């Protein structure tokens, strides 16, 4: 009995210390909700958008231009 009590008290003290340490770490490392998302793949996937006719769809990542085309894809 005399040897068990210190062991029990030690175990309880260790558990309490661990809990307190973890709580302190969490409190000191709160997530900033305003931080930018990383990596950028967390953004929604950009899917091709449809034109009014629905025949042509181009993803936002592909830019249109007023420049003349130097070549064109076609059936051969």
């Amino acid at each position: 009995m005399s040897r068990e009590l210190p062991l029990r008290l030690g175990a309880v003290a260790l558990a309490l210390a661990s809990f307190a340490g973890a709580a302190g770490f969490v409190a000191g490392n709160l997530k900033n909700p305003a931080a930018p998302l990383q990596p950028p793949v967390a953004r929604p996937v950009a899917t091709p958008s449809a034109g009014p006719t629905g025949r042509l769809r181009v993803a936002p990542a592909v830019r249109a231009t007023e420049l003349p085309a130097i070549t064109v894809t076609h059936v051969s």
Partner: protein
Amino acid sequence: MDELRFAALGGECELFAVDAEPGRLREAETWIHRMHDRLTRFDAASELSRLNAAAGRWEPVSAELEALLRRALAAWEESGGLVHVAVRPALVAAGYGGDFDLGPTPIAAPPGPLPPLPALLEVRLGAARLATGAGVDLGGIAKGWLADRLVERLGPNSLANLAGDLYARGPGTTGEGWPVGFGGTTVLLRDLGAATSGVTKRRWGAGLHHLIDPRTGRPAAGDLSEVSVLARSGADAEVYAKAALLLGAAAAPAWLAPRSLGWELVPAERAAGTRSVTRS
């Protein structure tokens, strides 16, 4: 910018390069002619014809043909069986047994639905084997794949358009991409491929054209006449365009959405007609 135009692979080819080493475009043209001679099914001496003639046994193949055949197997897998290169018997039965410019060949009964490509084509290091009676026509998949390989030869800022299937690498002349005609508009392509699959060319009769539907073994008879696609590579674009055309107008958009960066679907009733597309 240097540019070069020439006929090969059944159409006009165009090469563009910024700051390319002198002679690089001519070297690329020579390479394309050499690859055409090796991959055509219309020359009995070509490497592809030798493979077709050796159906039933293992035949040595070059690294390029091996890579193309592996790409074809992957295309069959990712397209759910719609992109199928073992269509030569079906093409011959439909009357496309020789060079298109020489006219149609006798029509025979279609072979019926094609077996799965892996059942007809096996590839191992440096060799391939076709099942007895099977035959390969690499068609558009070769053009897209060759365009991807060609820009590696041309340099970091170049574009190769091989009879309609293309790959644009680098910032182009604009600094933001190469201006390419796509679906009636012009888009800037940078490290992207584009391809068009359709049934409006290479026709020799009512319902007779070069695009075989492996589900029937006959020329496709869907509700689309042309599909153009943007993708991460020329080979991908070609595979997606062909699969979408065979899927039809109702199913194609959902299939393309997670794969493609853009597409145009042209309904069959507008075959060979005027385009009037609207860009979003």
